[in-house]
């Protein structure tokens, strides 16, 4: 029997994927982080403090909302929405930032840095830094600072310094490179709050543990309202943190099928996408071995997506493991489909999702109509769409113009 979960071994490997491929300068810091995280996880005081912050500050638990009109429109399974868009700062990112922020304090680090694509993780990090009295610097690709100008201003209002990154392709991957360079230089007083389940060990494990709250709550909530487990879970996959957060506590239940949705951009065949599993292959990138979009020489390729948060060449190693074991199915939807997903959820349920999340909605539109009416599906609404309204507006204008 295939192993259902891929919990990492001592060296941070999920099957063949993961590990710790970083310059020597960072290894001791990663070892310290691993030790402190393990200790904190077993420390009732740390857990109580995090639980209290998640409840009183971030507003957890987030609701599990039944979506009657979406259910009717699909004409298949009953659709529930896990409302991470209602978590403080508007996305699941806050779960991880609170955990890592408390950990940074515990390690006596007074300064935090973060990378951000869409700006959601940057905003969440800046928020937590303000709340915990930590200095904060956020690296963001110059291209993304333009796409997400409002979030840049939000971070600055929160007291963070936002650094536009002008190297490479000027997007999320380059922001991570630059954050790593900062960390290599300031590792003694700085903690790097990585925003997803990628990077060197222990990040994929640690971020997963901080995001597992999504799946734990969902399990309880769906059992409460339906008296049974869902048949199917759907989440978008950038680095993969909202997806693994929802999936993890169901991995041991073989009847629960899971779908991870990547950014198909202009279509996988166009070469302009961020679909790592259909358009990439294993490689070593930004600290771990995992699927990555690269050319035949091993150079990391520029990706494309309408959503900055999914526009990333790499993916968390645990997802690579789950992909190869077949436990989770990965597929992609295009920019255009994602836009339809955004409009669909907005018009039918009054919820405008982040464009990242819109990919999960679009995929649901593809598979839920084929499901039975007595089945249950949960879609992770990883974030709210306010940040994307401008992008949606210009995309719609272009679309009407093109007609």
């Amino acid at each position, binding site marked *: 029997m295939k192993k259902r979960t891929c919990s990492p071994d001592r060296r941070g490997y999920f099957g063949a994927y993961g590990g710790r491929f970083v*310059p020597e300068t960072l290894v*001791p810091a990663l070892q310290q982080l691993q030790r402190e995280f393990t200790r904190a996880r077993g420390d009732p005081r740390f857990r109580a403090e995090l639980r209290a912050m998640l409840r009183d500050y971030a507003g957890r638990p987030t609701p599990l909302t039944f979506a009657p009109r979406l259910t009717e429109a699909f004409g298949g399974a009953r659709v529930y929405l896990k409302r991470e868009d209602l978590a403080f700062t508007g996305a699941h990112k806050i779960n991880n930032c609170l955990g890592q922020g408390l950990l940074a304090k515990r390690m006596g680090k007074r300064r935090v840095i973060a990378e951000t694509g869409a700006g959601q993780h940057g905003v969440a990090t800046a928020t937590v830094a303000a709340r915990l009295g930590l200095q904060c610097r956020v690296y963001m690709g110059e291209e993304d600072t333009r796409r997400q100008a409002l979030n840049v201003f939000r971070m600055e209002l929160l007291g963070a310094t936002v650094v536009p990154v002008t190297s490479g392709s000027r997007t999320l991957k380059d922001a991570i490179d630059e954050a790593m*360079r900062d960390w*290599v230089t300031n590792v003694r007083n700085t903690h790097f709050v990585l925003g997803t389940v990628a990077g060197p060990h222990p990040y994929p494990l640690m971020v997963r543990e901080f995001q597992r709250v999504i799946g734990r709550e969902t399990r309880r909530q769906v059992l409460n309202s339906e008296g049974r487990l869902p048949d199917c879970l759907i989440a978008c996959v950038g680095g993969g943190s909202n997806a693994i957060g929802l999936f993890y506590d169901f991995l041991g239940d073989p009847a629960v099928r899971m779908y991870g949705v990547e950014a198909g951009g202009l279509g996988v065949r166009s070469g302009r996408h961020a679909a790592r599993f259909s358009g990439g292959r294993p490689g070593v990138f930004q600290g771990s071995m995992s699927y990555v979009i690269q050319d035949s020489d091993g150079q990391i390729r520029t990706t494309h997506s309408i959503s900055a948060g999914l526009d990333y060449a790499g993916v968390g190693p645990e997802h690579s493991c789950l992909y190869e074991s077949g436990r989770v199915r990965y597929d992609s939807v295009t920019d255009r489909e994602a836009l339809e997903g955004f409009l669909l959820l907005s018009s039918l349920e009054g919820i405008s999702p982040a464009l990242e999340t819109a990919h999960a909605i679009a995929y649901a539109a593809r598979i839920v109509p084929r499901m039975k009416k007595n089945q249950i599906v949960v879609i992770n609404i990883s974030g709210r769409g306010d940040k994307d309204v401008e992008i949606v507006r210009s995309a719609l204008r272009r679309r009407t113009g093109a007609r």
Partner: protein
Amino acid sequence: MKNRIDERFARLAREGRKGFIAYLTAGDPSPAATAPLVDAIEAAGADIVELGVPFSDPLADGVVNQRSAERALRRGVNLATVLEIVRRIRTRSEIPIVLFTYLNPVVAYGFERFAAHAQRAGVDGVLALDLPLEEAGRYRRILDARGIRSIALIAPTTPPERVRRIARHARGFIYYVSRTGVTGEQRQIAFDLARHVRTIRQVTTLPIAVGFGISTPAHVKEASRIADAVVVGSAIVKEIERCRRPAALPAILGRRVRQLSAPLRSR
């Protein structure tokens, strides 16, 4: 197996000299330019050359080396090109060559295939920046089988017990990263350099090279007091970036290397 790095350090020790290691990105400003540049820096007194394999995401490098890699990539340089450059250098020089690389281009090429081709081309050592001790084992064994030295890095943040373990598995020489940070020029070298190098000396008989941020003759002089060799990168690469006339570049780099390595000759 005989190895040019070992031989060079043995000779330096016999002659009571300290070594000068020059870094260049292979293929910057063009694939054809590198071999003549290596000729020039060798003639100017370089003992070992480190050739950088350009990578799209050089997260341990400062801006000077990042831009250098970008220029090389724009010229279509890949690992095969780099090995071709090494072959060209070997038609006229026996200078020890270390490839300075990130892991992914080598993984994409196929590590065993790379080791075989590198040996045939005349590569003497490989330093993979993102390959720490815990991950290095199986790659080191492949290089060992080809007589290529797998060079290990030690950083200012490396605790003593870990220094010992890294030293035990080290080959060729130990590369001590002289500062907590990325490659690039700096004004001063770290005040605690001597102490760190002494710690490494206590646990190894291998030569110790010091690099990262060494960018003036004064730095070279200071670092060479305690190390067996000094590595200069960005200060050389910057000349390539600055130069508008590629034909003049060998002379310019030669002059720069002569100036930087001068403290190692006059004692």
